[in-house]
Structure formats: structure tokens, C-alpha cells
């Protein structure tokens, strides 16, 4: 017999369940006194460089009903396209930029809101520019493994057309599911549809 590779298997995912907010946003659920504030509440501060934007949206199930028990996280680059992570070796990110946000959605409507800045351009592996985008990760009761998608901006038409990820999507008719609609000055709407008509593209990445 040949040698063993001797690798471990990743821990299998399990659903976040109906009470993910207890663990990840306890103050939101009314559990006060353990943490000063919920993590992921503030992505930017007054000194952060870049154009202020607000991203709003909801997550819909296959019947068109909005989820009210989801947890939505986003991760994106600073105004210069640099990530505030030691894994990004291209330079120092804006020290006033967190890059990561988390929202439990509104208790009644399920709407998530992120106050942040518009990300800059980061390179694809071959150096071509990727259009400004925001990585989304969605978990909830009934979601067995976290769903990853990307949000692009409707006012970046030329950049989107040249984006190496969007270019690789075979069913062009589905690309609009990844593009947030500009609804006002600095205001974007990005709804996520888990299943059925207009089902959002999710990535195995």
C-alpha cells in the first residue's frame, strides 16, 4: 500500500439554527452585560477614507418569504482595494477601516443594513482588475452550510463587464442577481434569493 497523505477532514458544517443571534449578536437579542457591543456593528468611523454607502437588503426563501432569523456577514476591501488582513501583502489598508460587518437583520422585516464605504478595485489572480465588490456570507436555520455570494454595483457597468469572475459565469441571465441596485445617493439594495425565480448565484469558493 502507498503512504498516507495523513490530512484531516474539515469539520462538517451544521446549521446555525434559529438562535444564531444569541451567539453572534447577543445584545441584539436582549442579552446584555456580557459584551459591550455586538461584533461587526461598525465597519467604518469618521476618519475612514472613501465614499460613504449604505447597503440594504433582505434574504428570501423559495416561497418569497423574507428570513427573520438569518445572520449576514460582509467582507470587502478599502477605498484603495486593500484588505485589512495580514494575508493581503500588497500594502497597508486604511487603519480606520474594519472591512468586516455583521447584521442580524431587522427583527420584524428581516432587512439588513450595512453602513460602509465603496470598495476599491482588487486584482484577480492573474492581475486583471476585479470590479468593486462585497463578499457576503449568509447563515440561518435551514441553511446547512454557509452560503457565499458577491455583491457588485449597478453604477460600475464597465468594470462589471470586464470583471473576470462575472465573465466566467455561463448563464449570463443570472448575473443581475449579483448586482446591487442603486436606489439613491450612496444607497444600494441587494436582495438575496435562496431558491426559485431570480435565485442568487452562490459560489463554491
Amino acid at each position: 500500500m502507498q503512504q498516507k497523505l495523513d490530512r484531516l477532514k474539515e469539520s462538517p458544517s451544521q446549521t446555525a439554527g434559529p438562535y444564531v443571534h444569541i451567539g453572534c449578536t447577543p445584545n441584539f437579542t436582549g442579552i446584555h452585560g456580557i459584551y459591550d457591543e455586538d461584533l461587526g456593528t461598525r465597519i467604518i468611523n469618521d476618519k475612514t477614507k472613501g465614499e460613504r454607502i449604505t447597503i440594504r437588503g433582505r434574504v428570501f426563501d423559495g416561497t418569497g418569504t423574507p428570513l427573520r432569523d438569518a445572520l449576514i456577514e460582509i467582507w470587502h476591501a478599502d477605498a484603495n482595494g486593500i484588505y485589512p488582513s495580514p494575508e493581503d501583502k500588497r500594502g497597508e489598508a486604511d487603519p480606520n477601516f474594519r472591512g468586516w460587518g455583521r447584521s442580524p437583520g431587522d427583527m420584524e422585516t428581516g432587512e439588513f443594513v450595512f453602513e460602509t464605504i465603496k470598495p476599491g478595485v482588487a486584482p484577480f489572480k492573474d492581475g486583471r482588475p476585479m470590479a468593486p465588490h462585497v463578499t457576503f456570507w449568509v447563515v440561518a436555520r435551514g441553511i446547512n452550510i454557509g452560503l457565499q455570494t458577491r455583491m457588485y454595483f449597478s453604477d460600475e457597468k464597465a468594470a462589471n463587464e470586464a470583471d473576470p469572475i462575472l465573465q466566467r459565469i455561463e448563464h449570463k441571465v443570472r448575473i443581475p442577481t449579483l448586482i446591487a441596485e442603486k436606489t439613491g445617493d450612496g444607497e444600494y439594495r441587494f436582495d438575496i434569493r435562496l431558491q426559485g425565480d431570480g435565485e442568487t448565484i452562490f459560489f463554491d469558493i
Partner: protein
Amino acid sequence: MADKDAHNGAFYQRDREWHPPAYAPIYKTSVKRSPNAALISLDNTISEITGPVFGHNMIGEYDNDLIQNYAKAGELPIGQRIIVHGRVLDEDRRPVPGALLEFWQANAGGRYRHKKETYLAPLDPNFGGCGRTITAEDGSYRLRTIKPGPYPWPNGVNDWRPAHIHFSVFGHGFAQRLITQMYFEGDPLIWICPIVKTIPSKEAIESLIAPIDMENTIPMDARAYKFDIVLRGRRSTMFENRMEGN
């Protein structure tokens, strides 16, 4: 080149046959919350290889102690005192230091502290049910809590969750983001739970069952369970073409 630096490429492809599928009708809520279309596969970009950093200084003194972090002065929650400890490793058995772990659970009676929770077991005024910690240089972590109780849930008319602790895990890249659950050795409910059964193989299920660990038990105080968590490993970039200036 140092070995440590070589393993900074894309994360290994996720084994989707090892994880539960999105659509698992035995767990009814998944039926309308699972994408129909195939996921679109893409090798990681800088957007997935990177991830947020959490500093040890954000962790409060009692954040990893669910026995004390919500209890009133001089009081304690009811239930079996336990320690859960282990390491966060990647698929190549490398420790993952600086990993943020967030955990949440029901109290000893199987009741969650949540507005939408209706189970008739009572809340424990001294138990909040959440905590967090960050792994040390060797990937190790430790928490103290009350052993959670099993509880009924609306799926089949008589489905019960085995005792479990939820874990949310951040590694070094956003592609490693994971939520899972820890179960306890010897619990007969594990093998009849529809949520557990969404995991395709017995071997994968067993990787979420924490054994009792008498060597880490504190005599006359708290039993210990060992729970290691494995995150995606990553490829070496040693022989990969690099971008100009990188």
C-alpha cells in the same frame, strides 16, 4: 522560503460530499432555504484568502466562562459544570492561532435565552448562554460552561436535539468561515437527530462528537470534554506564478 510562508495560497477545495447538502428534506426547513442551482466554483481570489483579524485584547475576562459571564454576584447557574477544550487546526494539522470562536447553547434544562423560544423548560436567571475566545499560538482554546440539555423542536412531531454547543469559527481567510455544532460522547439522541443526519457519513458525524477527557477534568469541580475543530487547509504558492510586484 520558510514553510510557513509557502502555505499562503488558495484554500483547499471544500469536500461538498463530506458536508451536509443544502437540500436535506429530513430537516424540513432546508427544503425552501436551499439553492436549486449548482454552486459556481471559483478558485479563491484575494477577497476570500483574506479575512478579518480579531485581537486577544477584545476578549473580556469572563467571555469564555459561561458559568460566570451572566451570573448575578454570588450566584451560579444550575447544571453540570464542564470544561470544553481543544485546538483549531487546518487540514494539514497546522495550528490556527488567532481564530475567533463564538459559542452559544441552551441552559441545563434545554432552554435558550431568546424571545422566540417557547419551550416550557424555564430560563436560568444566572445563565446567558453565549461566550467567545481566541485561539493561542498552538491553536488551543478552552471554555467553561454548564452542560446544555436536550430539547424538543418542531420538525417531526417528536424530534429532539441532542445536547450540543454551537460554534462559529473565523480562521485567517473568509473562505474558512464555518459554523458547526459539538455533541457529547454517549448521547443516544445524536443518531436519531434529523439535523445531525443531514451529515452524509458516520465518520463525519463522529468528528463532531467530543469525548470525555478525564485528564483535563478538575477533580470535585468540572468534567472536561475535548473538541478539536478543523478548518480548510491551503495550498503552497512556492511554485506558482506570481503577479508582477507580488
